[in-house]
Protein backbone atom coordinates (compact mmCIF):
# COMPACT_ATOMS: atom_id res chain seq x y z
CA UNK A 1 0.00 0.00 0.00
CA UNK A 2 3.05 2.24 -0.44
CA UNK A 3 1.89 5.27 -2.46
CA UNK A 4 4.52 6.41 -5.00
CA UNK A 5 5.25 10.11 -5.52
CA UNK A 6 3.66 10.14 -8.98
CA UNK A 7 0.23 9.25 -7.51
CA UNK A 8 -0.34 12.53 -5.65
CA UNK A 9 0.19 16.26 -6.33
CA UNK A 10 2.86 17.85 -4.13
CA UNK A 11 0.41 20.32 -2.53
CA UNK A 12 -1.77 17.47 -1.26
CA UNK A 13 1.22 15.38 -0.20
CA UNK A 14 2.27 18.27 2.07
CA UNK A 15 -1.15 18.33 3.73
CA UNK A 16 -0.75 14.68 4.77
CA UNK A 17 2.66 15.51 6.21
CA UNK A 18 1.01 18.23 8.29
CA UNK A 19 -1.52 15.68 9.57
CA UNK A 20 1.10 12.97 10.17
CA UNK A 21 3.73 15.13 11.90
CA UNK A 22 1.89 15.60 15.23
CA UNK A 23 1.51 11.80 15.46
CA UNK A 24 5.24 11.33 14.74
CA UNK A 25 6.03 13.98 17.35
CA UNK A 26 3.76 12.26 19.90
CA UNK A 27 5.35 8.89 19.11
CA UNK A 28 8.74 10.35 20.09
CA UNK A 29 7.13 11.75 23.25
CA UNK A 30 5.75 8.26 23.95
CA UNK A 31 9.26 6.80 23.60
CA UNK A 32 10.70 9.43 25.98
CA UNK A 33 8.11 8.49 28.59
CA UNK A 34 7.74 4.72 28.16
CA UNK A 35 10.86 3.34 26.50
CA UNK A 36 13.65 2.26 28.84
CA UNK A 37 16.90 0.34 28.34
CA UNK A 38 15.19 -3.03 28.73
CA UNK A 39 12.58 -2.26 26.05
CA UNK A 40 14.89 -0.89 23.33
CA UNK A 41 15.87 -4.43 22.18
CA UNK A 42 12.16 -5.27 21.71
CA UNK A 43 11.67 -2.14 19.60
CA UNK A 44 14.74 -2.96 17.48
CA UNK A 45 13.68 -6.60 16.96
CA UNK A 46 10.19 -5.51 15.88
CA UNK A 47 11.51 -2.85 13.48
CA UNK A 48 13.85 -5.37 11.81
CA UNK A 49 11.15 -8.05 11.70
CA UNK A 50 8.57 -5.70 10.17
CA UNK A 51 10.99 -4.47 7.52
CA UNK A 52 11.71 -8.10 6.57
CA UNK A 53 8.09 -9.25 6.55
CA UNK A 54 7.10 -6.28 4.36
CA UNK A 55 9.42 -7.74 1.69
CA UNK A 56 7.42 -10.96 1.77
CA UNK A 57 4.46 -10.48 -0.55
CA UNK A 58 1.79 -13.14 -0.15
CA UNK A 59 -0.32 -14.09 -3.20
CA UNK A 60 -4.05 -13.47 -2.66
CA UNK A 61 -5.35 -14.50 -6.11
CA UNK A 62 -6.68 -12.19 -8.84
CA UNK A 63 -3.08 -11.58 -9.93
CA UNK A 64 -2.48 -9.61 -6.77
CA UNK A 65 -0.30 -9.89 -3.68
CA UNK A 66 0.04 -8.09 -0.38
CA UNK A 67 2.15 -7.95 2.73
CA UNK A 68 1.79 -7.26 6.42
CA UNK A 69 2.07 -3.69 7.77
CA UNK A 70 2.70 -4.47 11.43
CA UNK A 71 1.64 -1.24 13.18
CA UNK A 72 -1.13 -3.03 15.11
CA UNK A 73 1.27 -5.77 16.21
CA UNK A 74 3.79 -3.26 17.59
CA UNK A 75 1.00 -1.24 19.24
CA UNK A 76 -0.44 -4.32 20.98
CA UNK A 77 2.98 -5.44 22.24
CA UNK A 78 3.86 -2.01 23.64
CA UNK A 79 0.32 -1.16 24.75
CA UNK A 80 0.29 2.09 22.76
CA UNK A 81 -0.57 2.95 19.14
CA UNK A 82 2.27 5.49 19.20
CA UNK A 83 4.77 2.63 19.29
CA UNK A 84 3.32 1.49 15.96
CA UNK A 85 3.62 5.01 14.52
CA UNK A 86 7.27 5.21 15.61
CA UNK A 87 8.28 1.85 14.10
CA UNK A 88 6.35 2.38 10.85
CA UNK A 89 7.87 5.86 10.44
CA UNK A 90 11.38 4.40 10.72
CA UNK A 91 10.54 1.51 8.36
CA UNK A 92 8.98 3.86 5.76
CA UNK A 93 11.99 6.20 5.92
CA UNK A 94 14.40 3.36 5.11
CA UNK A 95 12.09 1.86 2.46
CA UNK A 96 11.55 5.22 0.76
CA UNK A 97 15.06 6.63 0.79
CA UNK A 98 17.09 3.44 0.32
CA UNK A 99 14.81 1.17 -1.69
CA UNK A 100 12.40 3.53 -3.53
CA UNK A 101 9.51 1.60 -1.92
CA UNK A 102 6.91 4.31 -1.32
CA UNK A 103 7.47 7.94 -2.29
CA UNK A 104 9.33 10.70 -0.47
CA UNK A 105 6.91 13.63 -0.84
CA UNK A 106 3.97 11.29 -0.13
CA UNK A 107 5.66 9.66 2.89
CA UNK A 108 3.39 11.68 5.19
CA UNK A 109 0.35 10.00 3.60
CA UNK A 110 1.99 6.57 3.88
CA UNK A 111 2.83 7.19 7.55
CA UNK A 112 -0.75 8.36 8.12
CA UNK A 113 -2.28 5.29 6.45
CA UNK A 114 0.05 2.53 7.60
CA UNK A 115 1.36 3.93 10.89
CA UNK A 116 -1.52 5.99 12.27
CA UNK A 117 -4.78 4.60 10.83
CA UNK A 118 -3.88 0.89 10.78
CA UNK A 119 -2.09 1.14 14.15
CA UNK A 120 -4.71 3.16 16.05
CA UNK A 121 -7.69 1.28 14.66
CA UNK A 122 -5.97 -2.09 15.05
CA UNK A 123 -4.95 -1.37 18.63
CA UNK A 124 -8.21 0.13 19.90
CA UNK A 125 -10.29 -2.58 18.22
CA UNK A 126 -8.06 -5.14 19.97
CA UNK A 127 -8.55 -3.38 23.32
CA UNK A 128 -12.34 -3.13 22.84
CA UNK A 129 -12.62 -6.82 21.95
CA UNK A 130 -10.47 -7.81 24.94
CA UNK A 131 -12.78 -5.77 27.17
CA UNK A 132 -15.72 -7.76 25.83
CA UNK A 133 -13.86 -10.91 26.92
CA UNK A 134 -12.85 -12.19 23.49
CA UNK A 135 -9.68 -14.30 23.40
CA UNK A 136 -6.37 -12.58 22.78
CA UNK A 137 -5.92 -14.51 19.50
CA UNK A 138 -9.31 -13.52 18.06
CA UNK A 139 -8.97 -9.92 19.29
CA UNK A 140 -5.54 -9.54 17.67
CA UNK A 141 -6.79 -11.09 14.43
CA UNK A 142 -9.87 -8.87 14.08
CA UNK A 143 -8.08 -5.70 15.22
CA UNK A 144 -5.17 -6.14 12.80
CA UNK A 145 -7.49 -7.07 9.94
CA UNK A 146 -9.79 -4.08 10.46
CA UNK A 147 -6.85 -1.67 10.80
CA UNK A 148 -5.39 -2.77 7.47
CA UNK A 149 -8.76 -2.81 5.68
CA UNK A 150 -9.76 0.70 6.78
CA UNK A 151 -6.30 2.13 6.01
CA UNK A 152 -6.71 0.81 2.45
CA UNK A 153 -10.10 2.56 2.16
CA UNK A 154 -8.47 5.77 3.44
CA UNK A 155 -5.78 5.34 0.81
CA UNK A 156 -8.47 4.97 -1.88
CA UNK A 157 -10.15 8.20 -0.74
CA UNK A 158 -6.77 10.01 -0.82
CA UNK A 159 -6.25 8.69 -4.35
CA UNK A 160 -9.68 10.05 -5.29
CA UNK A 161 -8.91 13.49 -3.85
CA UNK A 162 -5.59 13.38 -5.73
CA UNK A 163 -7.50 12.80 -8.97
CA UNK A 164 -5.72 9.47 -9.46
CA UNK A 165 -8.57 7.01 -8.75
CA UNK A 166 -12.31 7.30 -9.40
CA UNK A 167 -14.11 7.09 -6.05
CA UNK A 168 -16.40 4.04 -6.30
CA UNK A 169 -14.13 1.86 -8.46
CA UNK A 170 -11.09 2.83 -6.37
CA UNK A 171 -12.83 1.99 -3.08
CA UNK A 172 -14.10 -1.31 -4.52
CA UNK A 173 -10.72 -2.44 -5.85
CA UNK A 174 -8.72 -1.31 -2.80
CA UNK A 175 -11.39 -2.69 -0.45
CA UNK A 176 -11.57 -6.07 -2.14
CA UNK A 177 -7.81 -6.68 -2.32
CA UNK A 178 -7.11 -5.46 1.21
CA UNK A 179 -10.03 -7.31 2.72
CA UNK A 180 -8.13 -10.46 1.73
CA UNK A 181 -4.62 -9.11 2.43
CA UNK A 182 -5.93 -8.14 5.87
CA UNK A 183 -7.05 -11.69 6.62
CA UNK A 184 -3.91 -13.45 5.44
CA UNK A 185 -1.13 -10.90 5.73
CA UNK A 186 -2.19 -8.84 8.74
CA UNK A 187 -4.75 -10.68 10.87
CA UNK A 188 -3.28 -14.15 10.75
CA UNK A 189 0.37 -13.16 11.31
CA UNK A 190 -0.51 -10.68 14.09
CA UNK A 191 -2.67 -13.31 15.84
CA UNK A 192 0.08 -15.95 15.59
CA UNK A 193 2.81 -13.64 16.90
CA UNK A 194 0.68 -12.25 19.76
CA UNK A 195 -0.40 -15.77 20.77
CA UNK A 196 3.23 -16.98 20.70
CA UNK A 197 4.31 -14.02 22.85
CA UNK A 198 1.45 -14.64 25.29
CA UNK A 199 2.65 -18.23 25.71
CA UNK A 200 6.39 -17.49 25.95
CA UNK A 201 6.55 -13.96 27.39
CA UNK A 202 3.16 -13.01 28.90
CA UNK A 203 4.88 -10.25 30.90
CA UNK A 204 5.60 -8.39 27.64
CA UNK A 205 1.89 -7.91 27.04
CA UNK A 206 1.16 -6.51 30.51
CA UNK A 207 0.75 -2.98 29.17
CA UNK A 208 -1.88 -4.10 26.69
CA UNK A 209 -4.21 -5.20 29.46
CA UNK A 210 -3.35 -3.51 32.67
CA UNK A 211 -3.18 0.14 31.66
CA UNK A 212 -6.07 2.26 32.93
CA UNK A 213 -6.83 3.08 29.32
CA UNK A 214 -7.70 -0.51 28.48
CA UNK A 215 -9.98 -0.78 31.50
CA UNK A 216 -7.61 -2.95 33.51
CA UNK A 217 -8.69 -6.14 31.77
CA UNK A 218 -6.40 -8.98 32.78
CA UNK A 219 -5.17 -11.81 30.60
Amino acid at each position, binding site marked *: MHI*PDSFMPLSQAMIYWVIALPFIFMSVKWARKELDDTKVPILA*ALAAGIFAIQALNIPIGMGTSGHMIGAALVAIIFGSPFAGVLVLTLVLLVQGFVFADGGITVMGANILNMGVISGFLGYYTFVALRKSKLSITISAFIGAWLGLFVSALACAVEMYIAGTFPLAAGLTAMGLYHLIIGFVGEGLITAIVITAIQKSRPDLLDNSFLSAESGGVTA
Partner: protein
Amino acid sequence: MSEIMSENNMKFLYAGIAIALLISVLAPFIASQDPDGLESASYDVIDEVKMAAMEEMDPVFESPVPDYAIEGHGKTGEVVAIVSGTLMMLVIAFVIGKLVKK
Protein backbone atom coordinates in the same frame (compact mmCIF):
# COMPACT_ATOMS: atom_id res chain seq x y z
CA MET B 1 13.81 -9.00 38.63
CA SER B 2 14.76 -6.26 36.23
CA GLU B 3 17.91 -8.18 35.29
CA ILE B 4 15.91 -11.27 34.38
CA MET B 5 13.54 -9.15 32.30
CA SER B 6 16.46 -7.46 30.62
CA GLU B 7 18.00 -10.86 29.85
CA ASN B 8 14.68 -12.17 28.50
CA ASN B 9 14.33 -9.08 26.31
CA MET B 10 17.78 -9.73 24.86
CA LYS B 11 16.59 -13.28 24.07
CA PHE B 12 13.57 -11.72 22.34
CA LEU B 13 15.99 -9.55 20.35
CA TYR B 14 18.10 -12.54 19.26
CA ALA B 15 15.02 -14.55 18.29
CA GLY B 16 13.67 -11.51 16.43
CA ILE B 17 16.93 -11.06 14.53
CA ALA B 18 17.00 -14.77 13.61
CA ILE B 19 13.40 -14.70 12.30
CA ALA B 20 13.92 -11.38 10.47
CA LEU B 21 17.09 -12.65 8.76
CA LEU B 22 15.44 -15.94 7.81
CA ILE B 23 12.55 -14.05 6.17
CA SER B 24 15.03 -11.67 4.46
CA VAL B 25 16.97 -14.55 2.90
CA LEU B 26 13.84 -16.44 1.80
CA ALA B 27 11.79 -13.46 0.57
CA PRO B 28 13.42 -13.10 -2.87
CA PHE B 29 12.65 -16.78 -3.57
CA ILE B 30 9.19 -17.20 -2.06
CA ALA B 31 7.60 -13.73 -2.22
CA SER B 32 4.83 -13.32 -4.82
CA GLN B 33 5.86 -11.32 -7.88
CA ASP B 34 2.28 -10.19 -8.48
CA PRO B 35 1.58 -6.44 -8.05
CA ASP B 36 0.48 -5.43 -4.55
CA GLY B 37 -3.04 -4.26 -3.66
CA LEU B 38 -2.54 -0.57 -4.49
CA GLU B 39 -0.64 -1.31 -7.71
CA SER B 40 -3.20 -3.88 -8.80
CA ALA B 41 -6.06 -1.48 -8.03
CA SER B 42 -4.35 1.24 -10.07
CA TYR B 43 -4.15 -1.10 -13.09
CA ASP B 44 -7.88 -1.76 -12.62
CA VAL B 45 -9.08 1.83 -12.38
CA ILE B 46 -6.54 4.07 -14.18
CA ASP B 47 -6.54 4.14 -17.97
CA GLU B 48 -3.42 2.87 -19.72
CA VAL B 49 -2.20 6.20 -21.10
CA LYS B 50 -2.36 7.97 -17.75
CA MET B 51 -0.79 4.97 -15.98
CA ALA B 52 2.10 4.87 -18.47
CA ALA B 53 2.69 8.61 -18.01
CA MET B 54 2.74 8.21 -14.20
CA GLU B 55 5.16 5.30 -14.39
CA GLU B 56 7.55 7.33 -16.55
CA MET B 57 7.77 10.26 -14.14
CA ASP B 58 11.28 10.80 -12.78
CA PRO B 59 11.65 9.83 -9.15
CA VAL B 60 11.79 12.70 -6.66
CA PHE B 61 14.81 11.10 -5.02
CA GLU B 62 17.35 8.70 -6.54
CA SER B 63 17.35 5.71 -4.18
CA PRO B 64 20.63 3.77 -4.11
CA VAL B 65 18.90 0.36 -4.28
CA PRO B 66 15.52 0.78 -6.03
CA ASP B 67 13.11 -2.17 -5.72
CA TYR B 68 15.39 -4.19 -3.43
CA ALA B 69 17.48 -5.24 -6.44
CA ILE B 70 21.16 -4.83 -7.25
CA GLU B 71 21.55 -4.66 -11.02
CA GLY B 72 23.24 -7.69 -12.55
CA HIS B 73 23.17 -9.72 -9.34
CA GLY B 74 19.75 -11.40 -9.60
CA LYS B 75 18.42 -13.20 -6.54
CA THR B 76 21.75 -12.92 -4.69
CA GLY B 77 21.54 -9.16 -5.09
CA GLU B 78 17.99 -9.17 -3.72
CA VAL B 79 19.02 -11.26 -0.70
CA VAL B 80 21.93 -8.86 -0.02
CA ALA B 81 19.59 -5.84 -0.40
CA ILE B 82 16.89 -7.14 1.94
CA VAL B 83 19.34 -8.52 4.54
CA SER B 84 21.17 -5.16 4.52
CA GLY B 85 17.88 -3.32 4.94
CA THR B 86 16.87 -5.55 7.86
CA LEU B 87 20.22 -5.02 9.61
CA MET B 88 20.05 -1.28 8.89
CA MET B 89 16.57 -1.20 10.45
CA LEU B 90 17.85 -3.04 13.53
CA VAL B 91 20.67 -0.55 14.07
CA ILE B 92 18.53 2.53 13.36
CA ALA B 93 15.73 1.44 15.72
CA PHE B 94 18.28 0.52 18.40
CA VAL B 95 20.12 3.85 18.14
CA ILE B 96 16.93 5.94 17.96
CA GLY B 97 15.52 3.95 20.89
CA LYS B 98 18.63 4.59 22.99
CA LEU B 99 18.63 8.29 22.06
CA VAL B 100 15.00 9.03 22.88
CA LYS B 101 14.41 6.62 25.78
CA LYS B 102 13.61 8.05 29.21
